[in-house]
């Protein structure tokens, strides 16, 4: 079981901040493909990966990164702090 976290407009489009999923996805991109296939709101949130960032266990990562051993995956738009 992996925890999925969503922030900013990703959270708003999907309609929840966090959920647990059971998945055999090998990479983040595989997980995104599973999520897109679920429902329209996921397809919409993940329509353009270039507008998204991903963190694995609270470290910024890439969409082709492996998911083995990962407990927490967060999806969000580019950050706008400072």
């Amino acid at each position, binding site marked *: 079981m992996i925890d999925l*976290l969503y*922030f*900013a*407009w990703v*959270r708003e489009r999907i309609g929840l901040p966090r959920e647990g999923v059971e998945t055999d996805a090998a990479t983040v991109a595989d997980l995104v493909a599973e999520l897109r296939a679920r429902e329209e709101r996921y397809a919409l949130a993940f329509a353009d990966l270039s507008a998204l960032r991903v*963190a694995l266990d*609270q*470290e*910024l990562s890439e969409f082709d990164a492996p998911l083995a051993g990962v407990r927490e995956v*967060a999806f*969000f*738009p*580019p*950050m*706008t*702090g*400072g």
Partner: protein
Amino acid sequence: MRIAVQPAAFDPSAEAGLFAAGVSGAGALVTFTGLVRDLSGRLSAMEIEHYPGMTERAIRAIAEEAAARWQLIDVLVIHRHGRLAPGEPIMMVATAAAHRAEAFAAAEFLMDYLKSRAPFWKKEVTADGAEWVAAKDEDEAALWRW
């Protein structure tokens, strides 16, 4: 090194005074304060979302990178989240070093990385609704100079 991620308002000049009082042997202190700007004249609030846990980690990693690159005597980062009014301080950084070039470079480095690599997202709230602030290409480009 002090890193604070907090919903509470803070007084940048009071924090700068505390920072300065805790530093010894410095020749140069630099502070940066970022404030909520009301560009449209209709901003009622700025809402800042963050990723608890990752935020502190990311800021600490950025501050440690700065400390590894420049001879810093001390570093301070304060960043708010939650709902802020126009004109309120959003965040500040302070750096203390022997020489001005190091204090300035470290403060600018911290700001550039906090902008694009710390997990905060700003939303502008007006009477007409709310809109997420888009990341600027120039902020991403600013990282390339380091």
